[in-house]
């Protein structure tokens, strides 16, 4: 199998800026098919932006993104929506619709896109809810769920349409150890059992790497390092080591860019 066939998402020379800030400056990365891939990087490097660009919510200023052979930037609205039906996305907040119950939230994509009979919708929804352990919470409203439960419900919703890929935006942020364990197990199991491709952006290094087959570290708009979690851990790059070990100072300086300290203190006048 060639690289082209292996990679479900191919990003080439991607440029994107927001205002005067360049978020991506020639980002090139492949997301392999059937694997769990994690994108790591300091805050503000545009990890969530990248997920939105893969889903066609933000246009690239230069470069291309191919998802399953389709160039996202060139798709017409209808084609883009067809592609999105094959992508699931788990937002950091869960993004459940607050005016619907958990059951109706999971049923929502089915009701919007299909004319399935109610009995079948009910079966499909209950199966997904059972898979994430929330069959008993079907009648609750999203505001009654804990953060971890909301994310599991959102995962059930992302799965209900049998997508080819699921994108997870910071799935572990703010989770207690039990919820974190459940999510880790679910992401890993779901990816294997359903033959999905999973793409995750995360700050929680150890947890994310423990279930990842492949990881990419981005910083300053380009890929700094990519490889298996083992390869990253043994990387020679000081930058990578600083990031993985969480050292406060190193190639990424502790101090934000500023004029010389001595000059500023002794100079007296602030320009």
């Amino acid at each position, binding site marked *: 199998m060639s690289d082209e066939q292996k990679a479900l998402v191919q990003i080439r020379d991607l440029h994107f800026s927001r205002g005067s800030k360049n978020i991506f400056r020639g980002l090139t990365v492949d997301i392999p098919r059937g694997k769990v891939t994690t994108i790591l990087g300091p805050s503000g490097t545009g990890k969530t932006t990248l997920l939105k660009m893969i889903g066609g*919510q933000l246009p690239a200023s230069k470069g291309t993104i191919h998802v399953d052979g389709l160039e996202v930037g060139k798709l017409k609205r209808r084609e883009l929506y067809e592609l*999105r*039906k094959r992508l699931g996305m788990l937002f950091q907040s869960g*993004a459940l619709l607050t005016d619907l119950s958990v059951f109706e939230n999971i049923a*929502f994509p089915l009701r*919007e896109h299909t004319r399935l009979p109610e009995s079948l919708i009910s079966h499909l929804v209950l199966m997904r809810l059972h898979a994430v352990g929330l069959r008993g919470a079907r009648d609750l409203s999203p505001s009654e769920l804990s953060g971890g439960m909301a994310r599991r419900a959102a995962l059930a919703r992302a799965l209900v349409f049998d997508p080819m890929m699921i994108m997870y935006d910071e799935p572990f942020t703010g989770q207690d150890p039990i919820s974190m364990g459940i999510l880790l197990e679910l992401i890993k199991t779901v990816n294997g059992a359903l033959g999905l491709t999973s793409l995750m952006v995360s700050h929680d290094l150890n947890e994310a790497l423990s279930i990842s087959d492949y990881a990419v570290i981005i910083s300053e708009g380009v890929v700094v390092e990519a490889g298996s979690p083992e390869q990253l851990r043994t990387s020679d790059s000081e930058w990578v080591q600083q990031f993985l070990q969480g050292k406060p100072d190193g190639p990424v300086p502790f101090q934000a860019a500023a004029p010389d300290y001595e000059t500023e203190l002794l100079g007296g006048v602030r320009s």
Partner: protein
Amino acid sequence: MIDLVQRFGLFWLNILASLGRASMFLAQMVTALPSLLKRPSLTVRELYSTGVKTLSIILVSGLFVGMVLALQGYNILIDFGQENRTGTLVALTLVRELGPVVAGLLFAGRAGSAMTAEIGLMKATEQLSGLEMMAVDPFKRVYAPRFLAGCLSLPMLAAMFSAIGAFGGYLLSVEVLGVDASAYWSLMQSSVSFTSDVGNGLVKGAVFGFVVTWIAIFQGAECIPTSEGVSSATTRTVVYSSLAILALDFLLTAIMF
């Protein structure tokens, strides 16, 4: 001096850019309207939350405005011996001006602000992004049903405001001040034209409904997705809608009457 000119230019450029975005937004919303035919339940639900839920405030305000008009009108007309014409004064003031305008202002405060806050919070909690990623177009699912419901409910609310106002006028002038009941109703009937008075009042209501709902939905969709952003968008909705209603009312009155 150059700085001042720059700022002045930037101010107008920003206004023009935002008007352009609002027009594009409106065009997309109107294009999404036909999709509502397939799912009328979406519009019915919004009619309930924008129209029915605003009804109580409209009816109570209408009753009081009608009574105040009757009281003021009676006190003036009695000097000319024309107190029997109180009904005419109340009805014409209501159907031509106060019905659509006050109902519009109340609608902007009650339903418009709620619409902006709801859409703004949907944006802040990523629900709108979530819909897009589920291949559901927010224009068809969220904006268009609210827009249509707003355009349909305000003329009806304005009509109900005028009707209950006329009744309030009756209660005060006939039951309290002793104006003759048959004179109150018959003079009102003979001097209020269905097409040029009631009809034009309904046109005003429809125009205000269109503008208020457009402003409310656009402000919600454009807001900065933070609590501060949602709160200032809600304020903008009420301020812009109220100004738009008053300015358009002058324009429409000048054209229609």
